[in-house]
Every structure is written in structure tokens, then in C-alpha cells.
């Protein structure tokens, strides 16, 4: 059984300006110990999916309209806030995008790490601080700095503290929402490597949300490409990177400069992400798709499994697939 299974998850925001369809029928599974990369442009619904799993979608205006979030066979969408509080931090943890604002400025980092521990484990204050010190050492910060405030740390160090908080109760699933976006490139590599090591040591599964395919290539086992609230292609790292089958995925790869080839110009994907309040009829990528056929704008394509574990939401994947092989 998979640790986490999202089945047909749909999350909408009901605002005065209309219904924002952030996540539409998303299906995704995360096995024990696996790292799944969730890749997509800004506004693709990645963060909403993450908040949905934690049952933290701001309500109002957000609402999980339909679908199931099966965590170890239990549907998190049906749990009440009290039950969810036990799960958050202990079973499922989240790392936020910006470490500068994800820590409380008036509490010491020791206080903040100890807080999670004390919330979920029956430990005395002193024991919780001892454990917090261990966590700090584990992310590579000397435990003497337990009594310091967030502003006394650099950005990369703060992200380490955030990671220490997230992992303090050894959760089974870690959701990392663009954990390295706010960091320098040099620090990015360090933090990613550390997250990977810790994940392996603790046997934690991870959902890594990012828009950086390079980060995905370094860390993930499985990849899911998200577009306008849907997963358009998913599969193993190899499936996505070497046997690209969806036109959108292909477009993403073509937008990255290659070291091997001498390209004068990149081929960006034309147009913009559709307004989530009025998604196009049929396939939501069709207005931007270079392979578009008449039928695309009429009906929503089915998801097909083109190889074991490799799913594509495009009936014309063969065209894309062939082109990719030529490269």
C-alpha cells in the first residue's frame, strides 16, 4: 500500500470574482521512502495541493470539493481539525518556501524546535530542549546556537532550522514546498543534499514541490508534471527525462538551455498559463500546444499508461515521443 494516495482531488477557491479552480482531479501516489517531484509553473496549483494534503487550505474561500486524500488508508479530507492537529508535524510535515518568514522572530530557534516536540511527544521541557539540540546538530548547526533568535542566522541556516522543525518528530511524509527557491545556488545544493541524506536516514517519504527540473533530476525517484491543477504526465525520473511524452513537459525541457547542444535561441512555451477562473474547454493546454488537433479543444483527454508507471494525459503522445527520441 502506498503511504499517500491522492485520488481525483479537486480544490477550488470560491471568491467574489468567481471560482478559482486551483486543483482539478489530481491523482498522485507516494510510496514509503519515495521522493516524488511535483513540477509546474507558478500558479499550477502545487502549493494548494500541498496545503490540501495538510488540510490547511484557507477556508473560506478554499474548499476541497471532491476527491480523497488517503494517508495510510485513511481519508484526511474527512478528518476534523483536532484529528488533523495530531497528524500535522508528527505524521506529515511541511517545509515552507521562504525561511526568512517561516520562523517566529521573537522566539529562539530552540523554543521553536522544542515546541513541535512538546506538541507531539510527552517530554518534559528540559528533555524537549535536549532533543531540539540533537535536531540542530543533525542539520549541521552547533547546538550552542539553540538560544539564538532567527535573525542571528543566515538564510541557509534558517532553512536548516525549518527542516529541523519539520523532521523533529520523525514524520513519515515530508512536503517540501520549493525549499530552495529563496536560497543562493551554492546553498541550494547543500540544503538539497542534506535533505536527501536525512530523508534516507529517517526513511521519510517526500513530496518535493519545485519549478526547477535540475533539482528534480538530483533528488527525485518519481516526477509528476502539473499544469493548471492537473497532472499531465507522471512517471519515474527516467520516464520523464528520457521518454518525455506530453507536449507540455517537452516544452519545459526545451525552455532550459543545454550544455551539450549549441542553441542560439531557447524555445519557450508560447502564451501564458490560463486563468484558473475560466479554464479552456477540453484539454487546458490546447491553446498553447504545438501539437494541437481539432479534437483537443472539444473533449478533455483521458490519462493513458504508455509504459508501466508512466502516465500521460494526451492522446497524441506518440507524436511528442517520436520527436523527443530524435534529439
Amino acid at each position, binding site marked *: 500500500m502506498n503511504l499517500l494516495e491522492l485520488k481525483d482531488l479537486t480544490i477550488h477557491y470560491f471568491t467574489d470574482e468567481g471560482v478559482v479552480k486551483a486543483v482539478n482531479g489530481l491523482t498522485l501516489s507516494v510510496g514509503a521512502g519515495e521522493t516524488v517531484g511535483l513540477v509546474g509553473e507558478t500558479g499550477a496549483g502545487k502549493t494548494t495541493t500541498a496545503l490540501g494534503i495538510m488540510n490547511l487550505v484557507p477556508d473560506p474561500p478554499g474548499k476541497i470539493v471532491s476527491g480523497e486524500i488517503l494517508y495510510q488508508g485513511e481519508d484526511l479530507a474527512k478528518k476534523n481539525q483536532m484529528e488533523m492537529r495530531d497528524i500535522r508535524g508528527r505524521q506529515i510535515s511541511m517545509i515552507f518556501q521562504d525561511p526568512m518568514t517561516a520562523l*517566529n522572530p521573537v522566539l529562539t530557534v530552540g523554543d521553536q524546535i522544542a515546541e513541535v516536540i512538546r506538541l507531539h511527544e510527552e517530554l518534559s521541557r528540559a528533555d524537549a530542549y535536549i532533543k531540539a539540540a540533537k535536531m540542530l546538530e543533525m542539520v549541521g548547526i552547533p547546538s550552542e546556537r539553540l538560544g539564538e533568535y532567527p535573525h542571528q542566522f543566515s538564510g541557509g541556516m534558517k532553512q536548516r532550522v525549518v527542516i529541523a522543525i519539520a523532521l523533529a518528530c520523525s514524520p513519515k511524509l515530508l512536503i517540501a514546498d520549493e525549499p530552495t527557491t529563496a536560497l543562493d545556488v551554492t546553498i541550494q545544493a547543500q540544503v538539497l543534499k542534506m535533505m536527501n541524506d536525512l530523508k534516507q536516514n529517517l526513511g521519510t517519504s517526500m513530496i518535493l514541490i519545485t519549478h526547477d527540473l535540475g533539482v528534480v533530476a538530483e533528488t527525485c525517484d518519481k516526477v509528476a508534471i502539473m499544469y493548471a491543477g492537473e497532472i499531465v504526465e507522471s512517471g519515474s525520473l527516467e520516464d520523464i527525462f528520457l521518454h518525455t511524452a506530453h507536449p507540455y513537459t517537452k516544452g519545459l525541457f526545451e525552455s532550459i538551455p543545454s550544455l551539450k547542444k549549441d542553441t542560439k535561441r531557447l524555445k519557450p512555451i508560447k502564451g501564458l498559463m490560463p486563468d484558473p477562473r475560466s479554464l479552456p474547454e477540453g484539454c487546458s493546454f490546447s491553446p498553447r500546444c504545438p501539437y494541437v488537433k481539432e479534437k483537443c479543444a472539444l473533449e478533455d483527454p483521458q490519462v493513458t499508461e504508455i509504459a508501466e508507471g508512466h502516465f500521460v494525459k494526451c492522446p497524441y503522445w506518440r507524436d511528442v515521443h517520436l520527436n523527443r527520441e530524435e534529439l
Partner: protein
Amino acid sequence: MSEQALSSKKKSMGAEKFHAFMKNKLAVAGAMLLIAMILLVALSPVLAPYGYDEQNYEVARQTPSFHHLAGTDELGRDIFSRILYGGRVSLTIGIISVGIGLLCGGSLGILAAYYGGITETVLMRIIDILMAIPSIILAISICAALGSGIVNTMIAVGISSIPTYARVFRSAVISEKSKEYIEASRAVGAGNMRIILRHILPNSLAPVIVQASLGVAQAITTAASLSFIGLGIQPPNPEWGALLSGGRQYIRDYPHMVVYPGIAIMLTVLALNLIGDGLRDALDPRLKR
């Protein structure tokens, strides 16, 4: 390792903040001034050369001299003694009424801002109704309803300051609650009470502390106005505002009757403001150099 970590934590909590405050020379001056005031006022039965209601018509309306440090009033009462005794009433009213305002206004403001929606609408409209009445008139009507006396004056002044504190707290909390660390603490399983008390409250205190230190000063003057129209402190009990208004009619010929109580009020307000600024700088780690 852990022992060391624990002790370094303790130091940073208490001692470091105290240190930061002590570095601010003006704030320390303010604190010393206020402590001196409180000591003088607290020890008034020992220090005051005369009783606060001791009348002596032979020395009525005397200018300051060695026998009467701040002169005497129209009934020959020693103004210096009356200032000392009056300070007890004034300072108590100032501090306790601000406490009442902070507690009621603060909890209303925090709840409104944190929960938002219908809770906020209802609570803030109630505050708006309170705000529509000028605070001095509100205090007058409360005092008139409850009757005069020190306790009722404190309640009246406290209630009339609720809207201010509710507003200050609300705006501070609104800007805090959308910060990512609040979401982060929710994501590790913290409940509403914990988030409010441990994360939001300490972060929104900085503007409130400054407001409260000014508020003590304002409460002292509001209480004085109440005494002036005969609703607050009843004669012969001395109170700084009452002393001021009592000497008002003699201001042309005997200015010492209002100048000295005025100086007492001014020094207290100054001390409180200096302390407020110093506290804000010390308590807020974001302002650390």
C-alpha cells in the same frame, strides 16, 4: 552539550532583554525617574511634612518657602504634601485603568483579528459604537452611573480606553497573522490558543507597549478631568488633576498652585514615554543592532 545549550537559552530570554534595555540611557533615566516617583509617592505618609487635609488659614496661598516647599493652597494646605498623597491616587488610577483597557480591549481586538469574518464584524462594530462616543463623555456617563470614587473612576477610565487598545491590537494582529510562520506553526499541529498566545501575542506587543505607556499618562489626565467636574476623586482627597483644577482660579496671582502639580504630571508622563520607547526597542529583536 545540552546543559550549555540550556543555560545559553536562559541568558538570552531574561538577561539579554534587560541588557538591551539598560543600554538605552534615556530609557534608564526614565525608569529611574519613575522609580523615584513611585518611592516618593509610596512613602508619602513618612515623607510628607503635613497631612493632605491639614488646613491652616494663617498660611493660606503662600508662595513656596522653606516651610512649604511648593507653597500652600487657598485653605492653607501644603501643596507638596498633597502632591505626594495625590500621586498615590493618580498613579494607581493610571496603571490599573490601563490594565483594564488592555485586558478587555486587547482580547477583543485579538479575537476579532484572528478569527475574522462574522466574529470580527460583530466585535468591531461594538467597538465602533464605543468609539462614536467621545472617551471623556463615555467616562463621564460611566462615572455618573456607577458613582464617584477611586475604583469607579478606574473602571470608567479603563472602559473608555477599550476602543483604542482594541484597534491597536487588531491592526498589529492582522499584520502578524498572515505571516508564514503562523502557517508554519499550524502545519506542525499547533492549536488556535497556542498560536494566539505564543506566536501572535508576543509579536504584536511592540506597538501596544508604546500605546500603553502613553495610555497611563492619558488615563491620569482623564481621571483628572473627571475629578475636575466633581465625578472622580472627591475632596478633600488629593489627586493631581484635582489639584490642577482646584488651583485653576488662582492661576493669575498664585501660579505655584498649578505649576507644581503640573510638573508632577509632566515628569511622570515623560518617564513613562521614555520607558515605553526603551521597552519597545529592547523587546523587539528585529530592532536589534
